[in-house]
C-alpha cells in the first residue's frame, strides 16, 4: 500500500474513499505452492476482499498453523503469525483478545484445523470470538506428501491408506454449526467471485466465521479435483436457502453426491461476540496498550483483602 493511501485513509478516519488494490496485500515473497494449487485462489480472493473492504494491512493480523496452506501469512502483506501445527485458533484468539481492534484472520488446512486442531476448532466456535477462519480444505495431507486427512472420503487411497480409507470424513459445516459458530460457509477456490463476497461477509460478521474452502491439491488428490467440484457445486443462494434456519443448513451441509452446496449455510446475528460480552473490554481500548501495574486504590484493596 502506498504511503499516500495510508495518509488518506487516516485522514478520513478509516472511512476511506481510498482506493486499495489487491496488490497492496502482496507479501514479501511469492507463494511456493505447486502450480495449479487451489490455495492461490484463496490468497487472491482474500487480497481482493480486503482491498474492497479497505482494511489497512497494518491493522490486520493473519495467523496460521503448519501445512502448505499455512504458508499463507508469508505471501500476504499484513502482520502475520506462522505458528504451530493445529494451534492457529487459540493463537488467533489470544491476539484478538489482546488487541480487539485488529482484524484477525486465521488460515490453515483441513488437517491443521479439523485433525490436530480439532479440539480448538470446537471451542473457538463455541466462544464466538470475532475472527474469520478460512480453511483450505483439500482432503489430503500435502506437505507430508499425501496421507489421509480428516475430510478424506471413504475409499480414498493415500500413502497411509493404500487399500482405501475406511473412516467417514468430518463434516466441518455441521460440526461448526453444532459447536455454536455464528457464521458458517463453504467456498471453492475456482469460483473467485463468490469466494470474495463470502470472505467480505465473514470479515464483517461479528463473531466466529468459518469458511471451509474447497482448495484442490493438484499433486496428491487426484479425486477431489477442480473439475470434480466444478461439476458438482450448487449455490445455496440459488436454492432460496435461509441462513437463519440451522436445521435447513445442516440438511444442505449433509448433501455430498452429484450436488454439493457452497455459499452461506448459517449466520446468527443475534449472538454477541466474546469481545462484546467481556466486561474487561468495555472501555479502555485494546488491552495491549493499556497502562501496566496497579493504581493506588487497586493495590490497597488487594493488600487489604489479605489482612
Amino acid at each position, binding site marked *: 500500500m502506498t504511503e499516500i493511501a495510508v495518509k488518506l485513509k487516516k485522514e478520513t478516519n478509516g472511512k476511506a474513499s481510498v482506493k486499495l488494490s489487491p496488490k497492496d496485500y502482496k507479501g514479501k515473497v511469492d507463494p511456493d505452492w505447486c502450480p495449479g494449487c487451489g490455495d492461490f485462489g484463496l490468497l487472491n480472493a482474500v487480497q481482493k476482499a480486503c482491498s474492497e473492504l479497505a482494511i489497512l494491512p*497494518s491493522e490486520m493480523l493473519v495467523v496460521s498453523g503448519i501445512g502448505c496452506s499455512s504458508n499463507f501469512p508469508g505471501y500476504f502483506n499484513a502482520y502475520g503469525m*506462522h505458528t504451530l501445527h493445529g494451534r492457529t485458533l487459540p493463537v488467533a484468539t489470544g491476539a484478538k483478545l489482546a488487541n480487539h481492534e485488529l482484524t484477525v484472520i486465521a488460515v490453515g488446512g483441513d488437517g491443521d484445523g479439523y485433525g490436530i486442531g480439532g479440539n480448538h476448532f470446537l471451542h473457538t466456535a463455541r466462544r464466538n470470538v470475532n475472527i474469520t477462519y478460512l480453511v483450505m480444505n483439500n482432503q489430503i495431507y500435502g506437505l507430508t506428501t499425501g496421507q489421509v486427512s480428516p475430510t478424506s472420503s471413504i475409499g480414498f487411497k493415500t500413502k497411509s491408506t493404500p487399500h482405501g480409507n475406511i473412516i467417514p470424513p468430518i463434516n466441518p459445516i455441521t460440526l461448526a454449526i453444532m459447536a455454536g459458530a455464528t457464521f458458517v460457509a463453504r467456498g471453492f477456490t475456482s469460483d473467485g467471485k463468490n469466494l470474495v463476497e463470502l470472505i467480505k461477509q465473514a470479515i464483517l460478521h461479528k463473531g466466529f466465521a468459518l469458511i471451509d474452502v474447497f482448495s484442490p491439491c493438484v499433486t496428491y488428490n487426484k479425486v477431489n479435483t477442480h473439475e470434480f467440484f466444478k461439476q458438482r457445486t450448487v449455490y445455496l443462494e440459488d436454492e432460496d436457502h435461509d441462513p437463519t434456519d440451522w436445521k435447513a443448513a445442516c440438511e444442505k451441509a449433509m448433501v455430498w453426491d452429484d450436488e454439493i452446496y457452497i455459499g452461506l449455510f448459517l449466520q446468527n446475528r443475534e449472538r454477541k461476540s466474546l469481545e462484546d460480552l467481556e466486561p474487561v473490554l468495555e472501555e479502555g481500548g*485494546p488491552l495491549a496498550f493499556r497502562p501496566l501495574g496497579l493504581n493506588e486504590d487497586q*493495590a490497597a484493596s488487594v*493488600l487489604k483483602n489479605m489482612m
Partner: protein
Amino acid sequence: MSLAKFDIAIVVGGAAGQGVATPGNILTKLFARRGLNSYAYNAFQSIIRGGHCLLTFRVSEQEVFTHGDKFDILITLNQDTMNRHLKHMRPGTWVIYNSDSITPGEADDGVHFCKMPVKELSNNNRNKLIQNTAAIAAVLGIMNLELEAFEEIVKAQFKRKGQEVVDANLGVARAAYQHAQDNYPSFEAEVPFGAKPLGIWNGNTAIAIGAAAAGVKFYCAYPMSPSTGILHWIAQNARELGIMVRQVEDEIGVITMAIGAAHAGCRTMCATSGGGFALMTEGVGAAGMMEIPLVIVDVQRSGPSTGVPTKTEQGDLWQVLGASQGDFPRFIVAPRDAVDSFNTIPMLFNLVDKYQCPSIVLSDQLIAEGNFTFDPDEIDMHPNIDRGELITEPSETNGYMRYKITESGISPRALPGLEGRIHVVSTDEHQEDGVLISDEYTHPHKRQAMMEKRQRKMIGVEKEIEPPKLEGPEDSNVTLIGWGSTYGVIHEAIEQLSDEGITANHLHIKWIVPFHGEVVSDILSRCNKTIIVENNYSGLFHRYMRSETGLTVDSHIRKYDGEPFMPHHIVDGVKEILEKETETFVPVHEIIV
C-alpha cells in the same frame, strides 16, 4: 512454654467435607492480626468428601519457615484422626475431641485429653460443623486468649447464613471457651503480640498478585491441582484489576493462546502443573523461536503421570529443562516461598520483555498451597516495570526487521497494529526480515547467524541475575545444598543442627537457567562435607548441577513420599551421614495422612 520462644503447632484432623481448612484459616487470621508469624500446611487427598485431611498450623513470634516437627494441640474432628495421630502427642500437649462421637485412645502420661461435650455446649445443635467452632473456642480458652476477635470472625463468616446460624455459633463458642477455661489445663505463659498485624497468603496467591503488580493483562489456564489457586485468584479479581482471564480447552490451547496475547502486546502469564506442562512443551519452543515474552508457571506435584495430585515434589526439573525440541533461550527459576514467588514474577516479566523469550517458574504444592504470613510493608505493589526494546510507535518508512541481528541478540520488537512495522513471526527458521529460510532455499549461514543471535541473549541475562551465595559460616562441618521450596526447611534444620553442635551452611539455588556454574563451583571447592537435599527420588538437581559444574557431592538426603520434609528429617540425615558415611539418606515420614 517459655515466653522467650513462643512457637506452637495446632493440628486439625478430619475427613474432607468436615471443614478442616476452615479452623485453620480462622486461626491463621486470628494470630496474623495479633502480629504472630505462622505457616499452615494442609495434608489432604484428591477427594471431595471423606478420606483424611490434616492441617498443621504453626505459629511463632519468630519467623516461621515450615510446619515444624511437633504437635502441641490436636483437634480431632473424627475418630480416625484420634486413632492415627494420638501417638504423636507428647506429655504436656492437648487433644481436643468431641466426646459425643469420639473415644480417646491410649496416650503417654501427661497428654491433656480435653473432652468436649458438643451437644451439651451447643444446646443439641444438629449441624455437624458446629464442633469446629467449639474446637477453636476451646483452643483460645486453653491459650487464655480473648474470645472477642473470634466472635467478630464468626459473625462475618456466618452472616450469609442468617442470624440464627450466627447466634448458634456464637453460643457454642462462648460455652466451649468457658468449658475449656474451667476444665482444661491452660497455657502457663502469655501468648505474645507481634509488632503489627500481618497479611496471609499462599504461594499461588502471591504469584497471582505478583502478576497483577507486574502488569499482566492476560491470564489463561486449564484447572490443574495444585496450580488452580492462581486461576481462582485472578478470576476473582479480574474485573477490578482489568485482567482478561480465559479458561481454555486444554493446556496446548492455554500456551498458544498466551502466545497470541503476548505477541499482540499484553504481559501474559499461564500456569499449570506437570501434566499440563507436558502438553505445553511445544508452545515453549514456539515462544522461543518467535521470540515472544511469556511467563509459564509449573506448580509441581508428585509424579509421574497423574501421580499424587495433592502432594508435593521437586520432580519436574528435567521436564522443564528439556521442554520443547531444539536449542533456544529460556529462563527457569524456582522461588523459595510465597514472598519470593511474589517478587519473582515482576522481575521475570522485565527479563522476558527485555530478552523476548519464554520463562518457567518452578513452584510446588508445598509453597503454592501452604499459608504464609507476611509483613505488608515489605511487599512492593508497584514494582519497576521495564518492557525492554518495545516499539509502540508507527514508522514513516517500511523495512522494519523483526529479527534484526544485533550484538546483544535483542531485536527491537514492534507490536501488531502499527503502520510501517509489518512483519510475520514464524516457528519456521527465518531471516532478519522474518521471511522463512526453512522451505524453498534453506541457507546455512543465515541459519547459523540467527541461531547465534538468539543464543546471545543468554549471555546478557546471566550478568543481570543474582548469583547464589553461601549462607552461614564458611568453615562449617557440613554444606547443605538445596533449590526452590526446600529453602525454609533447610534453614530450620541448620538451626537445630547448631543446637546439637554441628555447624552447617547453606547453598540455596534459585536460578536454574541461567545457572551460575562458575560461582557454584567456586563455593563448592571451599566446602567440607557437601549434602544435597531434594524432594525427589533420583537427585534431579544433583544431576543437573554435575552437568553444569562437573562436580559431585558427598551425600544426599532425598524424600519422595509426597509429604514435605520436616526439619528433623534433615537433621537425622545429616547426623547419620556424618556418623556412617551414608551416601543417600531417605527419611521415613512418621505422620500417615
